[in-house]
Each structure stands twice: as C-alpha cells, then as structure tokens.
C-alpha cells in the first residue's frame, strides 16, 4: 500500500530514531500505516518534543515534509539526551537538518555542495537537496562524515553490517527501487546496515524531494493529506488512488522519455508512468546476442531481410500498366473463332451429309425400347433438370424424347428441381404442340412446376407426389387434369426420364426415387459432359437407358425415323469438333517444334567456342 512520501519519510525517520529499523538482513521493515496520532505516540519523547517545537517555530507544518521540519527545528541544546540511546546522543545533538541549517546560516562555512547564490528556505529541505552534490553510491557527504567522526558508528548500526552477508552493498539500489516503485507497492526505504542510512544519502533524498514538490502544492490547494487527518485510517483510500482522480500528471519522473506516455482515460488519467505498449509489441527489435551462436553471412542477410520486411510495412502496389496488345494471341483467337464459325455455318447451310449418322449405342437403344414399349396413356415423369445455358444441347434431346412419347400417346408429367426447369419444359411442350405432336396440355401433358428442396424434396415427392399441387400454367390442381389422373403414386409411373445437365441432379433422382421404386425404369438424357459419370449407373442396372449429347439425340431421332433439329446440329457439331481437333493438333505440333528449336538454340549457345 502506497502512502504519501512525507509520511514514508516520517515513518522511516521514526524507525531509525527508535533503532528498530534494522533487521537481521539489514533492511527496514515496512513503515507503519497507523494514524498520525498513534504514530506520535510511538515516537520517543525527545522526537515528539522536537516535532512540537518545530511546529511552533514554523507555524506551517504543511509546507514541508514533517520529518524535515522536525529535524530542522530541533537544536542540540533542546534535545532530550537522557531518553536517547547511547549511539544517538551525539546524532540527536547535531541532526541532519540542523547541520544543514548551520551551514546555511553561516556563509563562510558553507560547504561546497551547497549552491552559494541560492539561499535555503527555513524548512524547505527539498529545495536545499536539489542542489546537493550527489555522492557516489557507498560514499557519504562530508557533513555526515563529520558527524560520524564526532560520534562514531553506533554498535546498533555496526553490528548488522558484520552479520549481514548480502544486501548491504545493494542498499542504495534498493532505495532507488523503493522510491520508483512507491506508487505500486509497499516498499519502504531500506537502510544499509554498515553505513549511515541510505535514505539520508543525497541520491536517495533528491528524488523524494523532487516528487514532494509535485505533491505538496496539490495538497496545499485544499486537499488535506490523508496522514494529516486525525482518526482516518490510511488504508481506506490510499493517496495514490486519490491522486489518480486528478487530471494533472502525477509521479512522472522528469525527463524520462521511456515512460512519458500519458494515459487519456480514467482510471489512468493523468498518469504518465505508463509503459507504452505499442513500441514493445509491434516494433521488432534486434534480439539479444546468444553466446556461442555462429551466424553465417547468409543467415545474417536473411535475418536483415526479414527485419527490413517487418519494419518496412506494406507498400502500395503500383498502378497496373495497360497490357500491351498481344498481336499473336489476338490472331490466334480470331483464327480459331473464324474456323469454328465457318465449319458450323457451312454444315448448317450446305448440309453436305458428309458425316454418317452415328449408330445408336446400347444405352440409347435400351431407352428407345422402354419408350417404345409403353402402353397408351401411360404416365411418364419427365424431369427437366437443366438450365438455360445447357438448353442448346439438351433442348434437341428433350424434343426427341418428348416426340417419341407423344407418338406413343403417353401422358407426360413434367417437373423440375431447378427454378428455370418448368419454363424450359413448357417451351419444349409448346414447340412440340406447334409441330402438331400429341401433347395437348392438360390431356396428354401436365407441368407440375418447381420442386424445391433438392434431395429432400425428391424424397418427399417419392412418398407423396401430391405435394406438387399447383399447375405451372394455370395454377390449378394438376392432379385433376386428365393427363395426370393416372398417377396417384410413383409406383404407377411407367417410366422416369431425367434430362440433366449435371451428374449431381441425376444422382439425386437415382438415389432418392430409384431406391424407393426399384421397378421404375429410369432413362437418363444427359449432356455429353455428364455421360462418363452417368455410365456407371447404367452399367450397374440403376439406369435402364442413357442418351447423351447431340450424337445421342441424333441417333435417337434416327431410331424413331424422324430426323429433326438434332440431326442438323449433329453434323455442325461434328464439323466443329473436327476443326477443334485440327487446332489442337496444329497447336501441339507448333509447340513441339518451338521447343525443339529452343533446345537446339540453347545447346548451340552453351557449347564452348572451340567445339564449333
């Protein structure tokens, strides 16, 4: 617990005067926190008498430290030598402050360490000590040496010095630590046992006096020091805590830039003895040198690079320069595009019929056989699970399958797990209706619309198809229409056609619906990019038919005997694929030739001149 400096000094003085301040290890015990009245009672009578007389003499005990005032007011003739211990009889006759005053009052005998032009105040010890020449640690001022010469070292102080093996030499440093750490701890000034009390040394007293200059005016402004109030326990509200409420700086060691940061917010407002955190944490510093560690130049360079990177911080990126036009890439891109367009346009316009119709694969034939074997008015579910980006490929495939279903007079019940799917389904049905196919809406075809939920929705739909109870076209009940009346459960469906542009959607249908109704034949009509992933389900028997891409649609149209859009597009696609293959081969050959030439040039350049 921190207490005002004046009280600490007073307590230390009292302890020394009583002779019980030296412990076995040469350190002082903590100063007592008793109220002033109790402390006065603990003082010996001679010291109390000195204080009383000093108070009467000065009349303003608050203006200076009480201990200094008491000692300054004391005179050798007024001391009560009978009550003093033997070793203090001489010291009490010539106390410290009295000696200073004597030298001040007698200019011819003024010591060298006192400033000649600056007269001392009557009780202003702090001002007097400001000009005190600081003696080196372990030494004592001349005036104190004279005192010791006159009275000698008392046994009480001399004995612990012999018995104290440690700590005595560190007393000066301990005193400094005690002063610096006063606001945070209960440390009291400590005494070296072998010499005069360290707290009496100038280097120990000067910071106390400087701090007292900062504290005493604040107390004189109206705030009574806590120790001066009788009957108030010091421990209830320490002075340092009171000082924290003040806005002004407190306990700031002058000139200490390392701890000069001042907090702005309470409860640390006004305190400047705060270690700045940011420089310690954020600023990298050079590490301590480890003895015996051999650092190579490369490691040192890397460490320096790392340090520079950490200290430099991020640098703004330069503005990107406009990319120079790469004529070579531009020509290549235009060449490929024009070649592809030319091939497609030529195939579509001229329709040369150079590419023979592909033979229907076994999965395509299987799909055809399933639809061909449907009885009239058989309910068939058709899932339009593709987006508009894939409609160019899956549109002709959907038309080929729907046309075959219409020929078989099946009832098409369309739905989709994609938001865009119902619109695409309706576009296909409308296109077939324009062709005159047997897909009259409501009688042969119904659009159930969007089925949300992904696999969860599919699972629920497999259990109860009636959850889709809103017709996509008219918003009515789709199950009341003739085209959907035959389907109460999916077990009544004769086939399931999944038009899918990605393998995940197809897998959901197989996993959720196919496992629930193993006897329901599932036909997958997929994009060419999905075919490798859908093929294992066909091989395992989970898919009964598989039609993939424009070639599959073309072969299916060939099987149905009604060539349509897929047949024309398939030839155009074949021409474009040929061009793409040609571009790939030419590009690969060009890259190979370039690499060979580069290797040869590099080999020639690396060869020694004598071998040319």
């Amino acid at each position: 617990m921190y207490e005002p400096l004046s009280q600490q000094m007073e307590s230390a003085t009292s302890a020394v005067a009583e002779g019980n301040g030296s412990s076995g290890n040469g350190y002082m015990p903590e100063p007592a926190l008793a109220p002033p009245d109790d402390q006065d009672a603990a003082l010996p009578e001679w010291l109390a008498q000195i204080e009383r007389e000093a108070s009467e003499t000065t009349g303003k005990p608050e203006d200076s430290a009480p201990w200094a005032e008491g000692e300054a007011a004391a005179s050798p003739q007024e001391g009560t030598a009978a009550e003093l211990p033997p070793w203090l009889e001489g010291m009490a006759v010539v106390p410290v402050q009295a000696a200073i005053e004597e030298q001040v009052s007698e200019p011819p005998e003024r010591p060298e360490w006192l400033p000649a032009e600056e007269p001392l105040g009557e009780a202003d010890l702090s001002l007097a000590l400001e000009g005190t020449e600081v003696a080196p640690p372990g030494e004592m001022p001349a005036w104190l040496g004279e005192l010791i010469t006159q009275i000698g070292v008392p046994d009480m102080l001399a004995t612990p010095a012999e018995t104290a093996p440690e700590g005595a030499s560190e007393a000066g440093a301990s005193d400094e630590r005690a002063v610096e750490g006063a606001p945070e701890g209960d440390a009291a000034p400590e005494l070296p046992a072998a010499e005069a009390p360290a707290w009496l040394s100038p280097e120990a007293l000067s910071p106390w006096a400087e701090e007292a200059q900062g504290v005493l005016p604040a107390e004189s402004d109206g705030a009574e020091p806590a120790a001066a109030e009788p009957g108030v326990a010091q421990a209830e509200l320490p002075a340092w805590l009171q000082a924290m409420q003040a806005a002004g700086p407190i306990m700031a060691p002058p000139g200490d830039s390392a701890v000069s940061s001042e907090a702005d917010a309470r409860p640390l407002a006004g305190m400047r003895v705060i270690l700045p955190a940011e420089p310690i944490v954020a600023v990298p510093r050079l590490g301590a040198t480890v003895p015996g560690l051999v650092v190579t130049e490369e490691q040192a360079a890397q460490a320096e690079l790392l340090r520079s990177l950490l200290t430099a911080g991020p640098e703004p990126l330069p503005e990107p320069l406009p990319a120079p036009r790469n004529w070579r890439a531009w020509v290549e891109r235009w060449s490929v595009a024009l070649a592809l367009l030319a091939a497609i346009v030529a195939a579509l316009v001229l329709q040369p019929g150079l590419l023979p119709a592909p033979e229907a694969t076994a999965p395509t034939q299987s799909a055809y056989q399933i639809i061909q074997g449907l009885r009239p008015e058989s309910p068939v579910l058709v899932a339009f699970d593709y987006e508009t980006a894939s409609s160019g490929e899956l549109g002709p495939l959907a038309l080929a399958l729907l046309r075959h279903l219409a020929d078989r007079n099946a009832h098409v019940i369309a739905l989709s797990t994609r938001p865009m799917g119902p619109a695409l389904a309706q576009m296909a049905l409308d296109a077939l209706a324009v062709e005159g196919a047997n897909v009259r809406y409501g009688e042969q075809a119904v659009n159930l619309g969007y089925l949300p939920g992904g696999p969860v929705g599919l699972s629920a739909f497999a259990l109860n198809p009636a959850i889709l109870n809103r017709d996509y076209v008219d918003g009515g009940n789709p199950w009341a229409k003739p085209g959907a009346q035959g389907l109460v459960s999916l077990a009544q469906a004769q086939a399931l056609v999944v038009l899918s542009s990605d393998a995940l959607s197809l897998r959901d249908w197989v996993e959720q619906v196919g496992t629930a109704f193993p006897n329901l034949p599932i036909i997958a009509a997929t994009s060419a990019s999905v075919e490798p992933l859908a093929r294992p389900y066909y091989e395992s028997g989970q898919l009964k038919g598989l039609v993939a891409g424009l070639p599959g649609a073309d072969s299916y149209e060939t099987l149905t005997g009604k060539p349509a859009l897929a047949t024309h597009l398939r030839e155009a696609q074949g021409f474009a694929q040929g061009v793409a293959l040609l571009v790939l081969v030419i590009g690969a050959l060009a890259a190979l030739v370039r690499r060979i030439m580069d290797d040869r040039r590099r080999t020639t350049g690396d060869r020694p001149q004598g071998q040319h």
Partner: protein
Amino acid sequence: MIETIGTWVAFGLTLLIFSVVIGDNPLYRLALHVLIGVTLAYALVVGWASVLQPRLIAPLLTGSAVERLVAFVPLVLGALLLTKISARLGGLGHIAVAFLIGVGAAVAIGGAVLGTLLPQTGAATASLNPFPLDRRGGAAWVAFWALIGTVTTLIAFTFVGRRTTDGGSSSVAQRLPSLAAQVGRLFLIVAFGALYAGALVATIAVLAERVAFVLRTLGVIS
C-alpha cells in the same frame, strides 16, 4: 408480336456474347449482367409463385386450422433463419440451420449409401464373376479392364510404401504397389480426359445451336 420481339432480343444478346471474340468489352459484360439479373429475378418469381405463396401464405390466410398450424412451422423456422443477418440475434438462426443440415444430411447420406455406394460396389465386384460377362453386351476384355482400372485406381489413392533397409533396389513384390498406383494414375488421366472431352463436345454443341439460331433468325436456314 411478343414472340418476335423476344426472338430479336435473344438474337441481339447472342451477338453481344459472341463479341467476346474481340476480347473483354462492355457489350459482353452487359449481356452477362442481363443474363444473371434475369435468371435471379425469374428464380425469385418462381420461388414466390411455387413455394411461398402456395405453401406458406395461402395456408396461413385461407387454410383450415390444421393447415395454418402446419404452415406456422416453416414460418417460424424461416423467421429464425432471417435472424442470421443480425449479430446479436444470429444464435436463434442456429435452430433452423441445424434442422436443415440434419434433415439434409440424413436424406443425402441414406440415399448415397443405398443408391450409389452399395450398388456401385456390387457392380464392381460383379465384374470378377466370369459368367455373366455378356450381361449387357460387353465382352470379356471390358470386364477385365474395368477390374484392372478399379483396383489400380484404388491403389493410386493409398499412400503406403515400403522403404528398403539398405537403400538399394527393392524386389518386384515391394515395387508392385507403386507400379499398380502408376497404372491407376493412368486410368485417372484417361477418366479426366474423357470428362474434359465431354465438356468440350457439350460446349461446341451449344455453340452450334446458337449459330443455328442466328442463321434461322436471319432467314438463312429454315
């Protein structure tokens, strides 16, 4: 009339997309933005017309007591899900998220095990049986390569090796797993090549369809 306008709008947007051949340009970006905006707007309309209005709003307003009670559950879950936009109330949305994830995972895992894992494992092991090789018109070499491909591809994903103690050459038995893994990687390369080829073919098919649309709109082809 509307169909004609729609056709010409589609024609113009197709040309804007084709303009990417001259590089990234504002016209191409305009077409992309229109495509994304229209797709999202249409999905929003479909979500309202197909999900929210018939399954939530209509039962709450005009449904029976039971229908209202049933519709109240998704209403509460949806409201809890909306609390995720608030940092303070976001914890309430965990209930709806937990419900979604729990139900979705249960359905998806059950379907994957019963619909993909077990059937595909059974089909792979069926190739070891030499008798039904012509089950789907395949030949013996198809089953053989399927078996080799399956086994070596699985080995390619096992990172287990045996290090020789003397650091010298190992025996054939010790090198067999690494050799099989290399064969499996070849199968993987072929599979990825087939996927890439399929994607290329699909893209060219879409390009051909769009060119046909442009020519049809211009009256070049019928």
